[in-house]
């Protein structure tokens, strides 16, 4: 019973505080403000204290914290053996569709989002095939030369997929009638899950010390900034270019990654 | 003495019923009593006991004995629960006559005497008044008698190896002609009374003819057993494919029923062709299901066939399942045994058979609908037939044990 209570307490702490809800909210708020500045969108006043949060944001936040709890973040109270990549990937993947289910008018081009999400999933799970492990920190630690090409290619694909998944591309959702999009609370809780997973998967985990902590959040912040940068570039290029890029470039590139995974499998057997 | 009585009592019963036609109740009672006596004699004629009372050794093989018992049971069910517009006395007369002929064939010491009994049956059936021309009623059975006689004659001669193969061809072709299966299908008239139609050859007399011919085939065509098996399997598959499709697509519902009998015969011929015990068991199970299932159901559907009634009640689907040989009805174990024998002999044949089993389904659905909505005696009869089919579908061992398998 004690074991159960301590484990449950650790998981609850991870879900609610670190690397869960509070971390997700703070990190997301900072990055979203940066994005708002870059995209020159109105920050608005997300007065969440005065009214009940919409169900869609609550569910997205729950999925986000579930994913964050699986990260190889320093001081994560969840034991390394208890973390699971599939849970993280699926929880993040679900966030897009929670929006479609509960507030469909906020989702732009769900078909294309689905294709990009499939590419993103390949970049997340593809590197886990050869190591035969779903522990995020194990995958981050993989530095075997034979597996590095897949890891690098997957990391690049991951970054390519981030802007559309974070709704940073210039596709206006059906309900968006304003010229300057406003502060997006739903996206705010997604910054850390997406970027933290990138850090977890593609960089060796740091030790449970301050340096490790700084390293983890530094890489995560860089990933977020890269995403912001790509998003702003896409915004300047326009919707058609963006659609063309993801339909004609990213999807074939993910097929290339798939081929690379197969070749690696064949070579390492 | 039992084999002699087994022939004489049903024959006497048929004669009594004919003679007492003006007094139907008395005719029925006398016929039923003599028929029951005949059945008792069949029961008492154990396979290992031979009788030589008339200077001719008579005995019943286990398979023939079981068929006689099942045929008697089928006749009893039909007489007790006659189809609408059918006279009990007439049913009993024809049934007892047929039983007497079947028993005579079964107890015959050799095929020649059995063929004589068959010839007598041909003549007796031809004496009835039917809708078809006399010649078209007699032709095919007469050809069967001629072919079987030719087989007997050729088997008595010595000559090149082809001679034995000719015997095999004559035996199988003669059997097919007697039954009225492809390629010797008898002409069929949907309006004709069942007794004078080709149905008795397929559904009542046929099983015994097949058992007797197959029992003597190996002695007659020594060295050509493989040819007999190949011919039986070939004709069996031909009948399965053509008759199941015809039963589904033909215009007349009554003709569809006739084709369904032929399709079942295809299975039985395949079973006899696969000489393994499982094959024989499968063939016998198919014949039992014809006698106890398909024949009574056909007779009970005649009225709705006349009225062209098509219904989609539960009973229609259950009857369809029984006719299709689906589990838990009697056709399913027969198919399993057939699969087993075919797999043991040559697995591609099992594959062909397994695929062909599906051909029963569309035709059976159609036949099930032609049952209409059975009521009263007809409903009781259908229920009894289905119950028997389920019983032997789940536990056919007693029947197979009766047949010595």
């Amino acid at each position: 019973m004690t074991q159960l209570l301590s484990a449950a307490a650790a998981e609850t702490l991870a879900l609610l505080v670190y690397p869960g809800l509070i971390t997700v909210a703070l990190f997301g708020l900072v990055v979203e403000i940066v994005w708002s500045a870059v995209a020159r969108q109105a920050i608005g006043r997300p007065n969440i204290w005065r009214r009940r949060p919409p169900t869609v944001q609550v569910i997205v936040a729950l999925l986000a914290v579930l994913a964050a709890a699986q990260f190889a973040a320093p001081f994560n109270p969840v034991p390394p053996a208890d973390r699971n990549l599939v849970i993280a990937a699926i929880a993040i993947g679900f966030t897009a569709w929670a929006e479609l289910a509960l507030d469909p008018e906020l989702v732009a081009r769900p078909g294309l989002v689905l294709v990009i999400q499939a590419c993103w999933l390949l970049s997340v799970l593809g590197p886990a095939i050869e190591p035969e492990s779903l522990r995020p920190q194990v995958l981050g630690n993989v530095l075997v030369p034979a597996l590095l090409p897949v890891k690098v290619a997957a990391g690049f694909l991951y970054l390519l997929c981030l802007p559309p998944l974070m709704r940073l591309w210039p596709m206006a959702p059906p309900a968006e009638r304003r010229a300057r999009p406003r502060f997006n609370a739903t996206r705010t809780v997604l910054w850390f899950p997406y970027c933290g997973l990138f850090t977890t998967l593609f960089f060796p985990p740091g030790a449970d010390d301050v340096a490790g902590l700084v390293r983890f959040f530094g890489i995560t912040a860089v990933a977020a900034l890269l995403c912001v940068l790509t998003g702003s570039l896409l915004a300047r290029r326009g919707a058609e270019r963006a659609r063309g890029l993801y339909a004609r470039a990213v999807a074939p590139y993910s097929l290339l990654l798939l081929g690379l995974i197969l070749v690696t499998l064949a070579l390492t057997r | 003495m039992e084999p002699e009585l087994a022939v004489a009592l049903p024959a006497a019963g048929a004669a009594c019923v004919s003679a007492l036609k003006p007094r139907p109740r008395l005719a029925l009672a006398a016929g039923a009593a003599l028929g029951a006596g005949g059945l008792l004699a069949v029961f008492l004629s154990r396979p290992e006991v031979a009788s030589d009372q008339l200077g001719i050794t008579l005995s019943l093989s286990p398979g023939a004995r079981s068929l006689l018992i099942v045929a008697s049971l089928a006749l009893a069910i039909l007489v007790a629960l006659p189809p609408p517009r059918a006279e009990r006395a007439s049913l009993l007369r024809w049934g007892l006559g047929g039983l007497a002929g079947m028993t005579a064939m079964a107890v015959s010491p050799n095929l020649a005497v059995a063929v004589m009994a068959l010839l007598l049956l041909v003549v007796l059936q031809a004496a009835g008044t039917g809708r078809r021309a006399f010649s078209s009623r007699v032709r095919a059975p007469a050809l069967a008698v001629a072919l079987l006689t030719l087989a007997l004659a050729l088997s008595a001669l010595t000559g090149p190896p082809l001679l034995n193969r000719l015997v095999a061809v004559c035996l199988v072709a003669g059997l097919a002609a007697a039954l009225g299966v492809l390629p010797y299908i008898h002409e069929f008239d949907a309006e004709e009374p069942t007794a004078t139609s080709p149905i008795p050859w397929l559904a009542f007399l046929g099983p015994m003819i097949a058992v007797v011919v197959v029992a003597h085939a190996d002695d007659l065509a020594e060295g050509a057993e493989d040819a007999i098996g190949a011919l039986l399997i070939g004709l069996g598959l031909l009948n399965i494919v053509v008759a199941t499709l015809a039963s589904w697509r033909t215009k007349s519902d009554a003709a569809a029923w006739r084709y369904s009998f032929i399709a079942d015969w295809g299975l039985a011929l395949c079973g006899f062709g696969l000489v393994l015990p499982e094959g024989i068991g499968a063939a016998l199970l198919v014949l039992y299901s014809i006698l106890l299932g398909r024949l009574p159901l056909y007779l009970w559907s005649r009225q709705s066939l006349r009225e062209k009634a098509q219904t989609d009640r539960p009973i229609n689907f259950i009857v369809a399942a029984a006719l299709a040989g689906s589990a838990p009805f009697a056709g399913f174990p027969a198919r399993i045994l057939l699969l087993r024998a075919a797999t043991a002999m040559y697995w591609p044949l099992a594959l062909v058979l397994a695929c062909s089993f599906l051909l029963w389904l569309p035709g059976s659905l159609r036949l099930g609908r032609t049952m209409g909505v059975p009521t009263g005696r007809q409903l009781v009869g259908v229920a009894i037939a289905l119950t028997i089919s389920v019983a032997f579908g789940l536990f056919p061992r007693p029947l197979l044990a009766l047949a010595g398998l």
Partner: protein
Amino acid sequence: MPPVALLAPIALPIVAAIAAAASARLGEGIARIVASAGAWASLVAIAGIWLAVRSTQELALGPLGFGASFDLRLDGVGVVFGVIALAPAALLLTLQQRGWQESTVASLAIAAVVLAIESDAMVLTAVGGCTAATLAVVQFDIEDVRAVRPAWASVITPWLALAWAGVTLQIEAGTAVYAAVPVSALTIGIFALIAIAAVLGGGIVPWRGWASRIWTRPSLRAAGVTTALLLPLGIYLLVRAYEIGNGRYPQSWLNLALAAWGVLVALAAAARAQAAPNRAEYLAEIVPGLAGFALMAVAIGSALGLLAGVVLLVAAAMLTAALPLLPDRRGAAVLLVVAAAAGVPPGLAFGGRVLGLAAAFETGNVFGLVAVAGAATWLLAAAAAARSVGLPPGRRRLVPAALAMVAAVLGGVVIASGPALAAIATVTSDAIAGVMNQPGDLRPDPLSIITVTAVLPVVALFGPLLVLGGAAVALSKPGQATSTTESKAPLFAVPGATLAATALARLRALSMPDQYRSLFNPAALETVAAGGRPMLWLAALVALIVAIAR
């Protein structure tokens, strides 16, 4: 507990069926109560027998006459699959209004499925399965003869295949008893027959087969019971195949092929679901999708995969019971059932899928790719589920509010059962160990599921997540329901679907050109063949002689 008690789970539904038919005059309600009582009694009997002895019970009643013996055996696998099949069927028999004929046939089908599961040999399983399939078709026709129903051939074929596999085993190995067949006797050919029986018998196919189409019928009485009974029976055969092969299939590529088939089934179901024009069409794809994942998990060939398959089957069983009870209107019940089916955390479907994917990754090699495809399929199914919320109902069925509540509860239970995964693993560990000879990749633990490379703390993680999620959703403000008057556009067009549809239409439209009709005229051929023409007979005789003389 005397072995003869093994007859009870089979006999009780049969007795109930007879009683239901006999009580028809007293009213449909009485028949329904009697039939459902029989189903529940059968379920209780199976559980009771197992709980009483907690070991395999056997009963030998001797040969039946066609190569099979009436020998029954109730082991862990039998209990698990018996409960999975019977629980939803009994629930639906209890809750749904149906006539005495339907109640009777459904009870007999239940008895047949229990016979198939309790049978200790393959041939008798085939008899039970074929009986259940036949009765399912009869049920559909009783319910609504005009509505779409499984083609009879499609539900009979698998059981013929299984019977063939059984008799082949009898010939080659001398027995078809699951526990007695030598490992070497399970050849690729025999396994292929078993696999065909499993996927076709359970309706686990990538095309839009009966398992999907029956859910679009106007009435869902027969569809629910049939799916509840036949789907587990299909998967059950694959589990028994492990027992025959001592925990393995004849070749590992067979595991891979079956797992890929399962993902393909789930992917096809999800692709159809995301293009569904209405909610009814979407709901029709829920069970086939879950069945595909269950097949993938079971086929992986590890104890963890088997556990995942069982968990997914449990989820599918509960959703099978919920689907016929769903109302048309969008509401809590629909949302809960759809969410449960989509696999939202921490539900059973979520846990089952996670375990299945983990098993595939841990098996390694190309199975990893199958797992990636499975994960992508899962997200596609989630997208389809999200899209379905705004779709129009698609059918007009009146469902009492009480039944909608039951459906909502069932959906909620599926979502809330995630923490119970460890309990399910503990309960089924004996059954899994009974068929898998290397259960080392799954160590029983009351709080977690411990695999080779990871630990899934189902209680510690899913428990708090459930509490937090429940509280947060309760405190949140539901969004405005979007208009569902017009259907949403599909997320994508299935590649090649139009081409396939056109090809199929052309194939159906094929007919013999007029100028050749005279060459092949079935009516004329019938007239010739059945016309009693002596010349034809003589020609046939000559043909036979020529054929045999060669």
